[in-house]
């Protein structure tokens, strides 16, 4: 039963690396991350800087991480189902002996591998720093764990967004909207009067999660939150793909 998954996964992954959009994303992603990291390092090496955070606490906990995630993940996923529906290739795909779940999972993992590939070169930053100073790898790995976990969750939302429309732009905007909710609703939750709602939303506060991970604090409940949310959106996507396959 793996043949369908593998066929779609490898085709999808290959499609990323031959598409110009992917290389544009990669270029800008690295430009932005590189610039941000150099700013952080520059700021921290200033003799007048207050002692305290490590560069990676700022790198993983800062606003640039969220800007990147919220803009980059919809662009990575917008094509996945929309394009099959627009071009009509979905007809051959969904009449082949594969299930909707296999198709969705294959597309998700292809997107995830591409996303991980985007981050791969940023491992050079701690490596560079480690030549001149001592680097604590624990928090860095925790940070990457968060980047992959939250990124995977965002990508699953992206596939869900992509299953809504034949139009990639619409898909990206729907995804962007969902991500904004996922990101800022819990944050706004700190304003609520109701203590229980506030506590619940507090658990879902991704901004706090990344702050903690950047400091090396790994809370398994958070990983469970990412995994279950991703599973939920992937399940919804497969239902949407089945229900709308006639369009």
């Amino acid at each position, binding site marked *: 039963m793996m043949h369908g998954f593998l066929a779609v996964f490898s*085709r999808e992954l290959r499609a990323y690396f031959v598409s110009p959009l992917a290389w544009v994303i990669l270029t800008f992603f690295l430009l932005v991350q590189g610039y941000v990291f150099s700013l952080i390092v520059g700021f921290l090496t200033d003799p007048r800087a207050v002692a305290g955070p490590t560069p990676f606490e700022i790198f993983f906990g800062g606003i640039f991480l969220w800007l990147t995630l919220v803009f980059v993940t919809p662009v990575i996923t917008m094509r996945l189902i929309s394009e099959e529906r627009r071009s009509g290739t979905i007809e051959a795909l969904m009449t*082949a*002996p594969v299930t909707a779940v296999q198709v969705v999972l294959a597309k998700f993992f292809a997107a995830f591998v591409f996303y991980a590939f985007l981050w791969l070169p940023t491992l050079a930053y701690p490596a560079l720093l480690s030549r001149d100073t001592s680097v604590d790898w624990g928090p860095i790995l925790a940070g990457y764990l968060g980047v992959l976990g939250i990124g995977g969750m965002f990508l699953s939302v992206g596939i869900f967004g992509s299953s809504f429309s034949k139009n990639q732009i619409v898909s990206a905007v729907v995804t962007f909207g969902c991500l904004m909710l996922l990101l800022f609703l819990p944050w706004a939750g700190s304003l609520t009067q109701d203590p229980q709602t506030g506590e619940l939303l507090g658990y879902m506060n991704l901004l706090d999660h990344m702050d903690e991970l950047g400091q090396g604090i790994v809370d398994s409940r958070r990983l469970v939150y990412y995994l279950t949310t991703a599973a939920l959106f992937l399940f919804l996507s497969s239902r949407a793909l089945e229900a709308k396959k006639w369009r």
Partner: protein
Amino acid sequence: MIEARGLTRRYGDFAAVRDVSFSVADGEILGILGPNGAGKTTTIRMITGFLPPTAGGVWINGKSLREDPLAARRQLGYLPESVALYPEMRLEEYLAYRARLAGLGRGEAKGAIDRAVDSCLLGEKRRQVIGQLSKGYRQRVALAAAILHGPQVLVLDEPTVGLDPKQIIAIRELIRDLGRERTLLLSTHILPEVEQLCQRVLIIDRGRLVAEGTPEELRAQSASATEVRIAFEGEVPDAGDALGAVDGVDAVLPGDGHLRLRCASGADPRAEIFRLAVERGWVLVELSQRRASLEDVFVRLTRGQGTTQDPDGAAAELDNSHGTPGDEGSEALGPNDTGPGPEDPVDRSGGAAEER
């Protein structure tokens, strides 16, 4: 073996297909005809499992598409109406992807790809990127992908659209070969193609099955029976009266340089006419019988009921389909298919009938 029972598809209040049932046996080629918007593609999409029916069901070799979708789809090869491929892939890579998707192992896939590439005449383009291929080639790539895994049941929606005459002959030959052992469902706009390839025909109009049978049976249903066309050397002023008296001739209609004799159903007065001509010393330069064509049947059955309300509209639509580039081949095919345009269906239908 395809079995469709009571297929119905509703979009809100509108029923695109209503209670369509039929079956296709192994070794049979069944053609689906119908004006644009009649529900052909909707029917085909339900047969292939792309579109779940509102009511009714489909069985592919006894496997229900609803109960056992993967097993049913494994037996199925499908060429969709809109040929959609991934433009960034090479032809070979695409076929390898489709082979894998269909569940072929690496070893099996290689042989299957070679065979499909050969039978769809794609040899010289194997390494080409699909986005750079012409429409005719892409059509054949999609066909190759449909037959790749050797499915027992094939559903082809307009397989010869966009091909040049030579390719059309080759692809029809391929379809005929495939149809010998497999179950083949074919949708097409090209009526001569139906007459050449299909053992049985369904005519769908406004979502309903309006006729079913062999092309022969359908022709027999046609109201306009047979017609004999006759032409003489020089002027023969008294021919009309004399011919009108021949047994089986109902009416004599003057034509441009010839006469058309409308005959009673089943009557063949040609031998009698020949004897009469010899007796009177007329020099015959033409004496031919024209049987009702599928086109007549089609126009009559779907007249005033299709998407266009007036009968001329229906006829015009058919004529149009003969004028599309994809159809050029069919005009240039048989020996009798070369000359006549759509306004002269006489020779064409005769030719198509002979070829069958």
